[in-house]
């Protein structure tokens, strides 16, 4: 596991140009926008970089050799989720620091304690995105998984539009659930979000393990 993490970290650091562009974009975003947008943006970039490590493994038929190393396939999968979680945590910390500095420079009295739940909420949201993308990328590869992702999002949007027309707001259990969540305390809402994210990541992990164990190289 530690060898795989070392590999992914080293491959990520190699992408100096991408990292510089990301940081530059983050600064521009931070200066030009207010609020927590920069946090969502940077955490998303962190996760995209982490998932990109699968593309590097896939490139040049690299998977075949990686699977001969003293690592089980499910360990390889677990490492990808941990790497994503680690990258999102680091990106989040960087984004919070940048955001805090910029808000202080602007003279806005930022109460971190007040903003923190909102800022933290971004992490489970983005990890849920990773939970969707990792098994797709392992199953279909970098190129095809993007197409599959578009199809899934398209289907979700079309489905929700269709549901909206069929179900009145009073009947919608989803809407009732959303209203209930809104009424929760920030800490409880955060705990619920992280809990849901953990469940989704666990399901996603099991799917990814299945995909990897069935895969031939």
């Amino acid at each position, binding site marked *: 596991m*530690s*060898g795989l993490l*070392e*590999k992914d970290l*080293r*491959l990520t650091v*190699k992408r100096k140009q991408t990292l510089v562009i990301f940081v530059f974009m983050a600064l521009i975003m931070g200066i030009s926008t207010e609020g927590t947008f920069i946090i969502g943006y940077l955490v998303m970039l962190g996760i995209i970089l982490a998932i990109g490590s699968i593309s*590097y*493994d896939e*490139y*040049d*038929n*690299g*998977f*075949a*050799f990686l*699977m*001969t*190393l*003293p*690592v*089980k396939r499910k*360990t390889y999968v677990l490492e990808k989720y941990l790497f994503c979680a680690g990258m999102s945590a680091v990106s989040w910390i960087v984004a919070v620091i940048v955001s805090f500095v910029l808000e202080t420079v602007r003279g806005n009295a930022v109460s971190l304690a007040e903003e923190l739940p909102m800022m933290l909420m971004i992490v489970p949201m983005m990890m849920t995105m990773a939970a969707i993308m990792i098994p797709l990328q392992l199953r279909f590869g970098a190129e095809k998984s993007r197409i599959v992702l578009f199809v899934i999002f398209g289907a979700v949007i079309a489905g929700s539009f269709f549901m909206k027309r069929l179900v009145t707001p009073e009947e919608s259990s989803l809407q009732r659930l959303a209203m209930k969540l809104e009424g929760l305390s920030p800490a409880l809402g955060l705990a619920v979000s992280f809990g849901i994210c953990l469940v989704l990541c666990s399901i996603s992990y099991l799917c990814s393990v299945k995909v990897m164990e069935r895969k*031939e*190289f």
Partner: protein
Amino acid sequence: MVKIENLIKNYGDFRLDVSMEILEGRVTGIVGKNGAGKSTIIKAILGLIRPDGGKVTIGGKDIAQLTVADKEKMGVALSDSGFSSYLSAEDIIRILRKMYRFFDESFFRAYCSQQRLPMNKPLKDFSTGMKAKIRVLTAISHRADLLIMDEPTAGLDVEARNDILDLLREYLSKNDNGSILLTSHISTDLEGLCDDIYLINDGRVILHEDTDAILGRYGILKVDGKAYDSLDKSYIIGTKKTAFGYTCFTNEKQFYLENYPGIVIENGSIDDLILMMTGD
């Protein structure tokens, strides 16, 4: 060390159906034309493909049951796969250090320095020979008991090929019980290194023989039509018609040397073996 029993794998029209054994302390070669099934056998041993039938065991253990510790005792070099080409030799050292308990970093560094392999350049900027050396070096630098090499010298010039073979010889000198399984289509590599050879054709083992026997007992007879008709063909295992008559491949060269003093008899080689046994 490695036992393959009735391994079956189907790819469309192609069917691999082989049994073979790689003994402890031996160097076993697999030869055959492109598409014969050499790489499929390697992939099956490494668990990279799911066989449609049969069994592969390493050290008596089914490959599906191999633990991380078991895999640490294997060193693998594949012809078409390795560490990401964006990594450098220095990166690989850092990764192997965490991957293998017995990684011999000083040996790895000393070899890189001896062969003038750049430590901080990405592998994508390496020559073909340098890449091959890194792949083999990675496989032998962690005290593996079993090396599995798929075409380790493919596409290399003579010098680079000799360097790779020297690396393998160095491994053998340090590991008395170490076994090597390698595939190659360069016969001189196999003749100088392998104890025994499996010849694969169309997914089947058509011959298994000690290298010394191939080089000592096997031979090529060159005869005209008349001599061919009168020839005792009991020990002829392959025949080809040529413009001048017939070329026959025998596994008992001595028999023909003694009984047919008038015919041309040449020593056999692995190239002859491939050509005569698998030629159309």
